[in-house]
């Protein structure tokens, strides 16, 4: 591009004659905003983190089924199992306690995996290591508390399926 090839002297003269842009200059680091394109941002940029140099090789983990393959299969087994467990109460009109317990357990696990995927996606470890750790532990605590609540509903109260039915027909 021609403008990048021009002499610094010409730039300086131009800069002196043109009004300075209102782009904010960071005070400490003397970094200028070089970008003239319009901003179309939904969220502000997150913290910018630099690890190593651009010439570092990408770390490739050793392939292991425990890094995701088992998790993937487990996820699918739960989701698949939830189909009949969800349909059965509709078909039968009520759920027996064993089926209700199975549905409740699957529901808690399925919800936990789903929320966990959201934390993984929206709080990247590289940019938000602390928030991510906090969210992971918040989710774990929530899941355990929800599981305790569900256990209580199933043992001392009317149960999950019956509970939903009562709310729905209230």
């Amino acid at each position, binding site marked *: 591009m021609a403008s990048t090839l021009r002499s610094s002297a010409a730039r300086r003269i131009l800069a002196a004659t043109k009004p300075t842009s209102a782009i904010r200059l960071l005070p400490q680091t003397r970094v*200028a905003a*070089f*970008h*003239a394109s319009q901003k*179309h941002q939904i969220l502000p940029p997150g913290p910018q983190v630099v690890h190593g140099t651009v010439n570092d090789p990408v770390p490739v983990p050793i392939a292991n089924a425990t890094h995701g393959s088992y998790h993937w299969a487990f996820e699918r087994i739960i989701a698949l199992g939830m189909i009949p467990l969800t349909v059965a109460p509709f078909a039968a009109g009520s759920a027996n306690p064993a089926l209700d317990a199975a549905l409740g357990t699957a529901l808690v696990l399925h919800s936990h995996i789903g929320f966990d995927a959201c934390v993984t996606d929206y709080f990247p470890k590289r940019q938000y290591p602390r928030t991510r750790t906090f969210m992971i532990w918040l989710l774990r605590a929530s899941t355990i508390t929800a599981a305790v609540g569900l256990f209580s509903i199933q043992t001392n109260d009317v149960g999950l399926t019956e509970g939903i039915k009562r709310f729905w027909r209230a």
Partner: protein
Amino acid sequence: MKSYASYPSLFDSSRFFLSAPSTSTSKLHYNQPLQSQTGYRSRSNISAMLSTRVLSRSLLRSARPKSTTFFTPRRMLTTESIPASSADSILAAQRLVRPVSPHLTIYQPQLTWYLSMTTRITGVALSGVFYLYAIGYVLVSPFGVDMSVANASKKWGEFNGAVKAAVKAPLAACFSFHFWNGIRHLVWDTGRELTVRGVYRTGYGVLGLTALSTLGLLVV
């Protein structure tokens, strides 16, 4: 001319000389603040550019050392010594002022990614309601609030019919969609319907089934 792509890559290349493996490196900056040099081209018209070019050429010619005995070329640059360790913080600060790449809003709404996104949203909504009630059941009950299904559903039943419908309809839609699209995903996981045709066919199928079962849930 609002944007040109060479700027980010050009100035991000500061990374290379800033991270040179020396104990100290120097940062180049012109006597004028850099920000005043940006965007001048967008404001200049052709005649200004031409005159600039002529001006710069004449300046370059005059700056050429014809005879070093009485004319010493003066460099219009100053350098500042900074530690190599500050390279990353300068780069990070520079990246903060880059424009964020446009996303979501610039893509054409398509059945593919809209249904994918909706699956997550509906799942989070349903599980969110479930978690809120179950956690409340544990945490609020000790403070004397009766969270039992019998009591809570009775309180809920006292609401206006329109309010109940306004809450139940989205819940029914969320449940229906998540259920049917979940099955669609499980079908994909077996390797079936993984073509553009298959994705659209199953997608419209899911939408149809969702509409039907939402209505069904609202009348039961």
